Structure formats: C-alpha cells, structure tokens
C-alpha cells in the first residue's frame, strides 16, 4: 500500500500511509511560497512540535487521542496512529447511535481535556471517531494549544455547537443538552465563568464556519 492523499487542508496535507507495518496518518504542513522561507520554516516546525506535544499530553491526561509515532520538524511532518472507526458525523446522520449517551461521553472527554490545560480548537463531529469496540477518540489536534482561559474553553464549546447546528440541526438540541450537562458537571465550579464567556461569544455573532 503506497501513500494516499486523503485531504488537502488549509494548513496541511494528510496521507494514509504504512509505517513499519502500522497503518498511519502522515500529516505534512506544506510550505507556502508566499511566506518568507525563514518565517515559513519556523511556523511549520513550531506547529508540528506543538501538535505532537499536545497529543502526548492529552493522552497522558487520559483523553483518548491517537498516538504520535514520529516527528520530522524540518519537513514539518507527523506520523500519527491511524484510528479505525466511524465518524460521529455519519453515525448521527444514519441514526446509528444514541445521541444523548454519546454526547454525554463527549462532554466528559472535552472536560478532561480542558482540565489538562489543553483546548482543541476544532471540535466537530468529523473529528470524533467511534471505534468498533465503542471507544470514542478525538482527532485532529492541528489547532490545539495549551490554555486554561475561559475564553478559549468557551470557543471550543461554541465551535462544537456551531458545527452541530449547521450539520445536524435535528439532533443538535439533544446532543448539546447531553454535552453541556456532562461538561458542566465535570468542570464543577469552573463552569460558571465559562458559561458567561460562551454567552458573550454568542452575542458577538461571529461565524466560525460560513459554509
């Protein structure tokens, strides 16, 4: 099996590949000709390192995420474990899951991530995988970073909310209710401030996705 390009994103190209007998995702932050070469190399390397670092710390905190297998900062390349399963996106569309139960699990998962001092930056139903054994895995930490700010945590929740409302309008209410219930319970005393920030963000009326 050779290298297969599966996605050309705004920041990186994703390849399905084989690596010492493992099925992997090879993520390459490709150079941009319009950036000065020094700036370009610095940005790509720094972000590669940050993504690897965040993935490792997330796993250490007990958040289900793919393993980082290899990193090449010069080429801004990451070799990440390939996760076999189905995206929540399709599972919701096919009515193949108990939305309430799964999103409660997502709520606990995101709370665990936030309590570990990490924010994901792009939580969508395309980035949540359900394995055959029922395990839930969070993917794509390309926009993730270290933060304990209420604002950044609220943005995480807001992005998930937006993605649910636009991609799964009928299931959104139930999913969000379950998510927020579990998340708020998990975050305990910290939830109040995050909730306030969430309301502010909503009032601002910004669209993260204009699709």
């Amino acid at each position, binding site marked *: 099996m050779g290298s297969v390009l599966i996605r050309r994103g*705004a920041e990186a190209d994703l390849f399905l590949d084989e690596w010492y007998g493992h099925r992997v995702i090879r993520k390459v932050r490709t150079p941009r000709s319009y950036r000065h070469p020094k*700036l370009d190399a*610095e940005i790509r390397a720094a972000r590669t390192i940050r993504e690897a670092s965040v993935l490792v710390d997330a796993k250490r905190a007990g958040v289900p995420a793919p393993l980082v297998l290899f990193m090449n900062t010069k080429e801004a390349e990451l070799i990440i474990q390939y996760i076999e399963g189905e995206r929540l996106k399709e599972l919701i569309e096919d009515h193949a899951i108990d939305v309430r139960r799964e999103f409660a699990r997502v709520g606990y998962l995101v709370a665990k991530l936030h309590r570990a001092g990490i924010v994901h930056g792009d939580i969508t139903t395309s980035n949540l995988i359900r394995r055959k054994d029922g395990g839930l895995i969070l993917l794509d930490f390309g*926009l993730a970073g270290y933060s304990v700010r209420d604002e950044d945590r609220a943005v995480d929740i807001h992005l998930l909310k937006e993605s649910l409302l636009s991609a799964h309008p009928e299931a959104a209410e139930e999913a969000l209710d379950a998510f927020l219930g579990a998340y708020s319970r998990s975050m305990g005393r910290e939830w109040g401030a995050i909730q306030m920030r969430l309301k502010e963000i909503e009032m601002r*009326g910004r*669209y*993260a996705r*204009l699709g």
Partner: protein
Amino acid sequence: MLILGIESTAHTFGASVVEISPEGYEGRILSDVKDVYRAPEGYGIHPREASRHHAECAARVVRDALEASHVTMNELDAIAYSMGPGLGPCLRVGATVARALAVHFNLPLVPVNHAIGHIELGCLLTGARDPIVLLVSGGHTTITAFAGGRWRIFGETLDMSIGQLLDRFGRETGLTVPEQAGFGGPKIEEYALRSNNYIPLPYTVKGNDVSFSGILTSAKRLYREGARLEDLCYSLQETAYAMLAEVVERALAFTGRRELLLVGGVAANKRLRSMLDEVVGRYNATSYLVPVGYSGDCGAQIAWTGGLAFRAGVRVRVEASFVRQSWRMDRVPIPWRPLKS
C-alpha cells in the same frame, strides 16, 4: 437611477455620483471627488481638526462631483451618506451635508455602512460575485463572506487594524507622508523593497483572528536598538501580510469559495497584492484586487452601495439619520444579495 454619495468617516471627505441600473448588479461611476485631511508631520488624525477640514471643503467637493458628472441635484434619485463606522465629528459633517441636501431638494436619504461600501464597490469594479473578502484599511481588518443575509465576519483583528500598525510604526520611525494623510503604508512599502533580510517578528494568528500589537511593540523596540529600518519594514510586511494570508487560506478552504476580493486603503500595497495572488493558486480560486485608485475611502463606495440599498427600499428619515461611530458590518441586513445569476 442616479445617486449622490457622501463619504466622511475619517480623513477623507468624498462625494460621488453613480448611475445604477434599475435591475441587476450594474452601475457606472460618473464622478468621484475627494479632499483628504493632512495631519501635521508625525501626528495621526485629529478628529476635530479633520472635521473642520471636512466642513470647509464639503460644499466645493459636492459641487465638483456634480459638475464632473454633468448631473444636477434635481436629476438625482437619492442621497447616500456614510452613517458609520468612523470618527464622530467627521461623520457628523457628512451627515449634516446629506441631510441638508435631502431636505432642501426633497430627496430620500440612504444610510450606508462604510465597510460594506468598500466591499460592494470592490465587487462592482472587479466583477467578484460571491467572494471571500479581505478588507484592510486604517479602520478595518476583516475577512468576510456573505452568508445568511449579511456580510459575516470570518476573522478579524483582535487589537489594531493593519492600517494602524503601518501608521504607528511609520510615525515612530519618521516614515509617514503628510501629503497622504500621515499614512505609514506607502513609505514602509518603499523601504521594504530595499531589503530581503527577514528579522523574526511575533506572528500571531489565533484561530481565524490576528493580532498586531506584538509586531508593533517588537518592531519599535528593534528600531530603537538600531536594527536597519529597511529590514524592519520588510519584516513587518512579510509577517503581517502572511498572517492575513493564512486566515484567507482558512476561509477559502472552509467555505469552498473560489473568489478572493481585496479592498480597503491598504489594498494598494503591491506586496500584499502579490502575496494574495499566490495564495489563491493553491485553491484554484481567482483573486480580485480592487483598482488602486478606488481602494481608499471615496464617495463612490457610498454612492454605489447607497444605490443598491435604495433600490432595495432602504431609507432613513432625516430625523432618525444619526451617525454610528461603531457599526459592525455583520449587523447590517443586505437585501440585494445573494446576486441573481
């Protein structure tokens, strides 16, 4: 239909007569006259002084715009004015002039959002129909696209605009041009051409937003420490523009749009223009760059957008024609979009 547009949000007082076809996105700029306030060397715009300038030149500018267009007040269908956003004293001059003309000649008054003016004029002049818009000026730095009835903000600056970054750095280093209202952009662009030595400056993109205060602080400090000004100008442009280019890339990727429109005063910058030309290549998209002569503030942006609004039934009673110093573009309903094929 014939529309007189009056622009007075900041340093520029402009008047323009535009002809808009009764249907469809078609129009012609019949005249566009302006007079720009000159700040004293080393100073930025002073709202009261600028408003004084506008009050002094208003009558002449409007008269010249009418003469150049060969249109008389009685032939006009409406008067459009920049209701905001902008500097209060400056806005009030334009609004006063517009109200006076509307009352005296019994013409409808149409309020226009200045930022949307840039966008719609850009679309008219370039042919872009449904673009990702990068609006870069002293007053704005936003990445916008039309969705759900409004021009939505995909990303924006978290602190100062790119124009303010250029002006402030220009002022600190003596690179402003009084004849060009104290702008830093043109001289910074000139100096940048004399270097390709990149000095690392803070590169700050947070999600879909950008922040320039790090670059400004760093560049000012490096200047005081003796870094070569040409190198700093070069590095400042490369860093700040690359940040904007990155958010533009994200917008193109996420929304799937295939058009990129560049508007606003800073759209005149050649480096930014060439950079965005390169960005779109990766997405099989087309870049539409507003003609340099219409990138800055002008009456035409108000007249054209006023025409679109007027055709769609937008009016304001003189008694209610206040100005709005803050007026986010995503608060403005846009009844003339989406454009019919």
